[in-house]
Each structure stands twice: as C-alpha cells, then as structure tokens.
C-alpha cells in the first residue's frame, strides 16, 4: 500500500513538472476532448482512442526531436526529407538489395543521423544559421531520396512489417505506438534527470553564458541535430510499417507539422523554455483535432481554417498568460 502511494508520487514527480508551462495546452486538450465527446457519439470509444494513437505515431516521434532542437534555440527544416530518405534507404536495402530488416533498419537510421551530423557541423563550425543549413539539407535529402528509385515507390516488405502497425498486442498497443511511447518516456526522463538534458535549457537561454559556464555548446548542438535526424529516421520506419510501402514524396511539409506541435505544446521558438511534456500534449491536440474534425464530417477546406485558428489560439493564450 505504502509502496503503491510512493510509486504514484514517483510517477507524478516525473510527469507533472514536465508539464510545467504546458498547463494551457493541457486544459485546451481536455476542453477539446469534452467538446468532441458531446458533439459526436463516435469520439469517446477505446477503438477511436487507439486510432488516434496510431495516427500520431509519425508526428509524435518526429516532434520529440524537434523539441530538443527548438529548446536550444535552433530549428530543423530537414526532418520531413530526412524521413523520406531513411524510408527509401530502408526500401532499397530490404526489397531491392535483399538485406534483412535487422540490418536494413539500423543502416537507414545511420543514414538519417548522418544528415543531422552534417547540419550540426555546418551550424557550429561554419556558422551557417540553422534555418539555412537545414533548409539546404531539406533540399539535398529530398533529391537523394528521389534519386534512389528515380521517384518510384517501393513495395514488397515482409508481411510482419505491416503487422507491426496493425496488430494490437494485448488488444491495446501496436508495436509502432509502443515505439512512440518509449521515445516519449526516454525523452521525458532524459530531459529531467540527466545533465545533458538540463544543458539544453542553458544553451537555449543564452549560449554564450552556457559556454562560459563550461558547457561544450558546440558538441551539444551537433548531438541535438543528430538525435533529431535519428528520430526523423525512426518516424520514417514507423511510417513505412504503417503504409507497407515507401515513396520519396513522403513527409512533405511534415517539418511544419512538427514545429506546430512543439509550439502548441508551449515551447518557445526562441529557445530555453518548454519541453517534451508539452510537445506530447501538442501532438495529442493536433491528432485529436484532425480525428474529431473527420468524425464531425467537417469539410476539408474548413478543417484547414480551424487547425490554423487553433495554432493561433494556443500560442496567443500562452504568451498572454506569461505576460500576466
């Protein structure tokens, strides 16, 4: 009994502080869910909840990496393209070259990480602004992804690969959702309990002060871009499983979705405040909103307007609260 209470405190001790600064978005998410529960009888069901989890996996994994980059005051516009490149590398290695998945997946993730390494080096050693460096990488990786098959899709993965995204183990978790949950938990723990996680806030607050305090800012910056690209690659693996195919045109403008999720979750674009807890809420808001609008049969054009309005609402509410 006592252990039980302790455990619960431990859990709250991790989750609640991670949500600090994200109370606005959390309230928004709850209000949204309440509204949808009353607006349509299809929303509040286990099946629909699991659908939403399936639907946010790609964005969720990607947005965690984006949060780290934005925390240090950077930006990564290349994630959508890096995702497509990782998917095409996976498809080429596994389907065309016959490399087993156990080797093809790590290699695809390695290629994705390399992109982050290059972007990080451009930013730290050559003083290229992050916006420009990742914009260039976005174009390069998209081109490379297209070159692998001359723009064609690749199909023909082993059957179990698609099953990862479809079969719900214990009636609950697909493997792809499990991947996302693991990424969330590792991210939350690292950000809160590891020196490396605290360092990110210091760099985002003021990189020069962080440097003078003895933090190796350059190394940390490069690592953050590598991790962000790695997670973009991982989200590509998840998407490949979900679609049972890979195509070089995947992930166009996903970087903007990821940035939107991070910002809705209360992380400041100028860096230093926010965190992964808020981003999880941001991802859920986008996921629930898209799902709910579909369930309400809102016309596709109106959906675009509403999603834009929610972004504006979330961000202005947060800045207004802070000013007070």
């Amino acid at each position, binding site marked *: 009994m006592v252990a039980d209470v302790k455990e619960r405190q431990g859990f709250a001790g991790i989750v609640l502080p991670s949500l600090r600064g994200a109370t606005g978005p959390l309230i928004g998410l709850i209000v949204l869910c309440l509204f949808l529960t009353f607006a349509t009888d299809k929303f509040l069901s286990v099946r629909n909840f699991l659908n939403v989890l399936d639907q946010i996996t790609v964005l969720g994994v990607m947005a965690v990496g984006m949060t780290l980059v934005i925390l240090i005051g950077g930006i990564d516009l290349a994630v959508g393209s890096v995702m497509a490149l990782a998917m095409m590398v996976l498809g080429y290695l596994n389907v065309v070259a016959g490399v087993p998945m156990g080797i093809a997946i790590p290699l695809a993730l390695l290629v994705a990480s390399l992109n982050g390494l290059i972007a990080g080096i451009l930013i730290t050693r050559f003083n290229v602004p992050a916006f420009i460096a990742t914009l260039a990488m976005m174009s390069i990786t998209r081109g490379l992804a297209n070159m692998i098959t001359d723009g064609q899709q690749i199909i023909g993965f082993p059957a179990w690969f698609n099953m990862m995204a479809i079969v719900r183990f214990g009636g609950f978790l697909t493997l792809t959702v499990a991947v996302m949950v693991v990424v969330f938990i590792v991210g939350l723990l690292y950000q809160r309990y590891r020196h490396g996680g605290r360092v990110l806030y210091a760099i985002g607050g003021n990189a020069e002060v962080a440097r003078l305090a003895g933090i190796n800012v350059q190394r940390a910056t490069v690592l953050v871009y590598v991790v962000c690209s790695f997670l973009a690659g991982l989200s590509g693996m998840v998407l490949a499983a979900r679609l049972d195919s890979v195509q070089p045109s*995947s992930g166009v403008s996903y970087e903007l979705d990821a940035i939107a999720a991070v910002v809705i979750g209360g992380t400041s674009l100028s860096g230093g405040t926010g965190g992964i807890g808020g981003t999880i809420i941001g991802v859920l808001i986008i996921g629930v909103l898209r799902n709910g609008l579909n369930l309400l049969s809102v016309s596709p054009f109106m959906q675009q307007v509403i999603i834009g309005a929610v972004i504006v609402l979330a961000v202005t509410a947060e800045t207004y609260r802070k000013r007070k």
Partner: protein
Amino acid sequence: MKLSKLLLAATAASMLALPASAAEVKKIGLAVPNLQADFFNQIKLGVEKHAKEKGIEVVVVDAKNDTNTQVSQVQDLMTQDINAFIYIPAGAAAAAVPTRLAREAGIPVINVDRTPEGAPGDTFIAGESVQSAYEVCKYIIGKAGGSGKMAIIHGQKGTTPEVDRFTGCKKAIDENKGVELVDQQWSNMWSADEGFTIAQNMLQANPDITIIFGQADGLAMGAAKAVDVANLSDKVIIGGYDGDVSALEYLAKCKGPFIATATQSTQKMGVLAVESALAVAAGQKVEERQTPNAVLTTCENAPEFVKSHP
C-alpha cells in the same frame, strides 16, 4: 404440391432478399487525394450530387496528397460506420492499407482513377488514358502538319496517368516520321505554374519547338502562357488532358495556342461510383473494370461541355 413449391420459392426469395435490404447504404465515405485539383473536385461533385438524389449521406476526406494522412482519414471513416467506401488513392504509391481496412469492416470498396497493387477493390472506375492521349497527340500533330519538333510536359513521375498518357502520345509520335521528340520534363503537382516554368525552359533550350503536349490541362495552360510570353502563339500548338473547367472555357474561345484536350467524364465517374457501391452492397455483380472514356475536345465541342460537364 404446387402450392408448397410456390411457398418454398417465396420463402427462398424472401431469404435471398433479406441480406440485400440489410446492406442498405445510408452513408458513403469518399477519400480524395487532393481537392485543389479540379479533376478530383469534379468527381466529388458527381458523387455528392448523385448521392443526394438517392438520399445518401456522403463524408468526404481530403488527404492533401499525403498517403499517411489518407490512412488516418480512412480509419476515421471506418469509425463513422460508413456502408461503402469510394477510394481514390493519394500519391504515386497507391496504398493498399485503406482497402484492407475497408475489407476488415466488410464494406464495398470502389476504386476511382487509381488502384493499389495487390489489393483491388470491388470495381475500378477510370478513364482509359492511353487511347485518349493518343487521340489528343494525333490531333495536335495533324494540326501542325504532321511534322516538327515536339516537347512533352509530364505529370508526377511514376503515377499511372503519367505512364499511360505518355504511352498513348508516344504511339502518335511514332506514327509520324516527321515528328521529333526533342524535350521531356516532369512536374510534381500537374499545376499551371509548373507548366509555365517548364515550358519556358523548354523554349529557351529549343526555340524551334512547334508542338507541346501537357499531360494535364494545368500544365497545358501554363505552357500556353509561356508560349504567349515568348511571342510564339502563332507558331506553337499545344494539347492538354483532363477537361478542367478553366481549360474548357479557354478552348471555347477558339483563340490561343492551346487547341485540344481530352475531357474526362469526371462527374459521370462519381455517379458510376455511387451506383457501383449500391450494387455491390446489394450483392449484385459489378464489372471489375469500368471505363468512362475521355472525349477529344476542341474549339468546336468545348462550349457544350462548358455548359454541362460530363
């Protein structure tokens, strides 16, 4: 004896009829790749109009050309308990997953325009691009006097319409020895601004091009603008494809370098899709492949298509 036989037949008939009434279609889900493209918008209008006449509700989702979004949207359609699913796959990769989802829910799947490899729906409704593209190219080559330098502006590389329309046009080119294919380029969105840029580059590289085939009307309209800008309007002849409303209006004026297109029976595709959904749900047999063919459209028959789109 006779009576009992009759009774037996009657019960059998009523039993047969039962599943048909049980599978009444009240709600149709329509997954569209991209409503910004007039072609898909026309199909949507066709579906909505016909469904309204039949008293059926239609739920439309727009994937904005993203396969991942489309899979999510189809999941949401299934949650809404639709009775039939009209599926136009997004992107070059026609994903099989939405078809599998619908199969799991046990509802009819009607494919329009594109069909996923290895997971066919109950029927596939699409124009036959090869023959119609052949007719358009044959017409514009004929108007150019059967010879000259030609360029092709392709659609999104690797998509079925892109491949088929090229196959058809190539046949017309091969039949005319005097025609030389000097340049080919690919667009991503089948759009007018891409057609404009691509045609401008083509004319820069080969100023003596006299025939251009744009694989979509957007591309052809863009190319027409580029030709106007280059002051070559009286030397170049352009053909398009699809029969978009704006293109039909352009053709109806009988002025300018863009002179022919193939008008797809888009609204009819929508109507056919609804009809097929009803038939499959009622347990009737439907043709595996239905081809409402495109009609060669020039300045002569464009006005009537402007009035009512086929």
